[in-house]
């Protein structure tokens, strides 16, 4: 890619990544949302997190990996346990990173 093309790519990606975040808020900030839409939107967060968690654990490299060699799968369980017990983002993150480092070295 030429220098100009790289800049066009950067600005193009910026526009299509910013527009979907900004437009809905700009559009709806001044008017009331229909109640049904509000209720539907209240389920977006659990759905997104369920999907993101599943994909990041079961397909960490972009394809489904249910083998015992998938280290993410092993790190998943202690992390969930700490999450459920502590309900703390920080402790859960910490437990996840430590588990992964340990598992990486045990498996390596």
């Amino acid at each position, binding site marked *: 890619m030429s220098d100009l093309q790289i800049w066009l790519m*950067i600005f193009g*990606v910026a526009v299509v*990544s910013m527009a*979907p975040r900004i437009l809905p*808020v700009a559009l709806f900030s001044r008017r009331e949302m229909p109640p049904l839409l509000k209720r539907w939107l209240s389920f977006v967060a659990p759905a997104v*997190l369920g999907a993101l968690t599943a994909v990041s654990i079961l397909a960490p490299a972009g394809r489904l990996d249910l083998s015992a060699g998938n280290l993410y799968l092993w790190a998943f369980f202690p*992390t969930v346990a700490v999450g459920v017990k502590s309900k703390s983002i920080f402790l859960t993150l910490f437990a996840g990173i430590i588990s992964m480092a340990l598992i990486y070295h045990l498996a390596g």
Partner: protein
Amino acid sequence: MIKQELYQGIKEAFPIVLGYLPLGFAFGVMARDAGLSAFQSISMSALCLTGAGQFIAIGMSKSGGSLLAIILTNILVNLRYALFAASTVPHLQGRLSPAAATALSYGLTDEVYAVSMNRYRSHEATTAYLAGLVFTAHLAWIGSTFFGALLGHFIGNTEQLGMNFALPAMYISLLVILVQRKSELYVALAAALIAILVGHFIPGAMSTNFNIVAATLIGATMGVLFRE
């Protein structure tokens, strides 16, 4: 009060920062590898602020993908942000000015979204809180890209430090905290299953995040039906 809210936002951004460091770093390294200058790499993180989108753009440009293809793929990848943004509106309405709500929405990433939605469960939204959260996360993304772009070749892999699990661990923690009602648990489980099935069976769905969008649409719809 404002100071407190700002501080709270910065504090709650801390786990996000931890998750972004290895990712932004990796992006900086890969962007240089794909032929971007350090300034271009950092500009991209500053202007785009879309992890998956940026990695895809770099990957596609390196393998000779056209500008149009890169932009079109990014539209797909970033579609979910529209859902996030819309679902924050009921919390922001009446609390933030429309201008502030709109402006700060630029920084809505998966992680910023989840952390702020968790906050809104028990606290009112404020401009200072959201600004603290968004700017800190954005700075971490830009800063880690900077280090990756400039120092990438001097530092080995971050995998042995367990840092590659920072984002999955954050998703897990947010999921565990956010899901409180039974209906939400079912929605999360259904969305997890849909994301995996769609990602596995529809070519390209995983790399474009289309499976996340599909899982969100179907999952949220199931949630509404469940509560009826």
